[in-house]
């Protein structure tokens, strides 16, 4: 099984991933306080009809964020 790093925005619907790091400081601060922290498992559970924003399951609740915000989250898939 491959173990690869990518941006959360590339993770497909229904796929799980492990948060590794952030590439954007400003947005990371907001995501961190919402419980989206490195080591946490996230799962893409919904994509808005127009492809953007997406909704993820994190820390036991549903969080919606835009694709470009998701692209600042580096995640590890197939762990």
């Amino acid at each position, binding site marked *: 099984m491959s173990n690869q790093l990518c941006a959360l925005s590339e993770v497909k619907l229904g796929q799980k991933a492990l948060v590794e790091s952030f590439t954007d*400081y*400003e*947005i*990371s*601060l*907001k*995501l*961190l*306080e*919402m*419980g989206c*922290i*490195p080591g946490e498992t996230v*799962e893409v*559970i*919904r994509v*808005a*009809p*127009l*492809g*953007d*924003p997406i*909704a993820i*399951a994190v*820390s*036991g*609740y*549903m*969080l*919606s*964020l*835009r694709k470009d*915000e998701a692209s600042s989250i580096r995640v590890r898939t197939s762990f």
Partner: protein
Amino acid sequence: MERRIKIALVGNPNSGKSTVFNELTGLHQKIANFPGVTVEQHTGKCTIKGDDGSIVQAEIIDLPGTYSLYPKSPEEELPFRLLCNPDHAMHPDLVIVVADGTNLKRNLFLSSQVIDLNIPVILAINMMDMVRSSGAEINFKELEKRMGARVVPMTARKGEGLKELKAAIAEVDRPAGKQHLDSRSMAPQVVDAIRKNLHVNSDYNAFLVANNLHLIETGEMSDEHRTAILDLTKHNAFDAQQLQARETLERYKLISNYLQECVREKTRPIQQSYSYKIDSLLTHRIWGYVIFLAVLFIIFQSIFTWASLPMELIDEGFNWLNSKVQSTLPPGILNDLLVGGVLAGINGIVVFIPQIALLFFFIAILEDTGYMSRVSFLMDRLMRGFGLNGKSLIPLMSGVACAVPALLSTRTIRNRKERMITLMVTPLMSCSARLPVYTLLVALVIPGDRLAGFSLQGIVMMLLYLIGFIAALGAAWVMKNLLKSTERSYYVMELPMYRLPRWKTIGLHIIEKVRIFLFDAGKIILAISIILWMLSSFGPGDSFQRIEQKYANAAIQKNIPVEAFEHDIQSEKLEQSYAGHLGHIIEPVIRPIGYDWKIGIALITSFAAREVFVGTMSTIYSVGDQRAAQRTLKEKLMAERNPITGGPRYTLAVGLSLLLFYAFAMQCMSTLATVYRETKHIKYPLIQLFYMSGLAYLSGLIAYQLLKP
């Protein structure tokens, strides 16, 4: 012994904080299941009697929901300002942190921050019914020990745990002294300097102040101190963002450890939750939009159809009252003032209560259930194209009820440009004050036919609301291209679990809103009605006497009783009255859009508040009308003739021109005042006044010129 204390309620959005507030104070406010609807700070009082005869008088403030003490949007600044400044007038003696028990990790994060401020804290773990049904178990004794604060489990919406919370309020009077995080070690020099120079409660308090220096106002800190602290932060390489990230990570690590000791959870995938299943339909790529449009359609249809019977009853009741007054009191000026001024004015206010109540009822349900945040999720991509944010949809939708609270709810939008644009375009949404105007005019010029089983008038009403929305998007798009901004746009938002609406709260909310309309708007409408009656019942100099003289002479000449000329006398008097003169002055400007001087009077009076239009029309058309009491305003307007064409005055062209004018014109003093307060610049309300009024005139002009016979 009596003790007076100040309590602040703090918590994540959707933690049920406002429900706790309502249960404690019995003073009701709007509570909505969307991040940050509690924008106006509601305060209330609560008296707690102890078993030992002691009494605690608590003044409670409900702070906007927030995820941390670092403000990320204008509305999140308030918790920081209040809690981090011990000299603030509303700095609390006790904080109740309301935490959602089904999401303890994120909720305890904020709780631990508040506890580190060294203020007395009660931790209310809410929604215990849902915790229990999920099969989770919380060891409250252990949690209390770990958190260092009194813990009260509750289910606020069922009133469970309320007694225990009140008892805790009476008992907790000092901070537990617990420090979760050693924030001093992250920036010792800066924290020490602030503790020395500024009144703060704890190391963490000082740390937060250093991190948000730009939010500390001049009155709270001298320039010397500010410069000194700024120098220190520079000297010590105090990187606010990096330290905030570090604090957040360490805090979450702590909380995770606590939770392992205190909570046994059965983790269930979100996909099994009922909210996820409902979302499969409500955010579906086709059904999501179909349902959203259907919801809007049903709302407007019901407003129009359900409200019509009570409205007719109110109108008939007033007609009966009018004829009673007219026949009981001796004829004369008092009789005229009561029927033509006072009663006509009150009728014009009361008749719209059914529709306004229904509108607020539907908006409250959409917010309270959590559906509104799904609507932003569906619409964000679209809204972004217009320089707006998915979150802009909440102000826009609430703007259908009233622009003033809607403008306040823009505070959840973090990006300044998006927030400004939302502020500028929200008043284009058709608010409930336009409803009376629409109702009257639609009933007047649109036939009462049915189209595929739906009321044609209802469909036109919905189109009017749609036009307002489209105009708002168009204006937003123009402003998006005019305004410059380098600031990032920002969305990240929780999708809360769906909940059943809290009927009691919604009911009280409607009563509150109707009362505001009845008394606040009603006062203005009534006052203007009476002034208007005076302006239209009297004229300058002896003009009225001359008219009477003229017709008296004519009557003698033609040898018929002067009463035969009554209608001509009255309409000539109105034209020669003060109001008539005013109307004539602006007539040249409004003639191209199809209005005469009578409508001109209504335009002038509705400048301050558009709902005055109907009252004005009913006063103008009651003055001197002998059959005034027996005819409704609609009947009077239908009978009105255009002296030039000889046909009806209110043709489709005039009606549509008026409808469009009222849809777009900025005719609300309160809105302008609120925009000024929110933007802190006179430029914005002025631009708003001119662009909206220009749009109104232009669209009225186009409609009238295209449609006029």
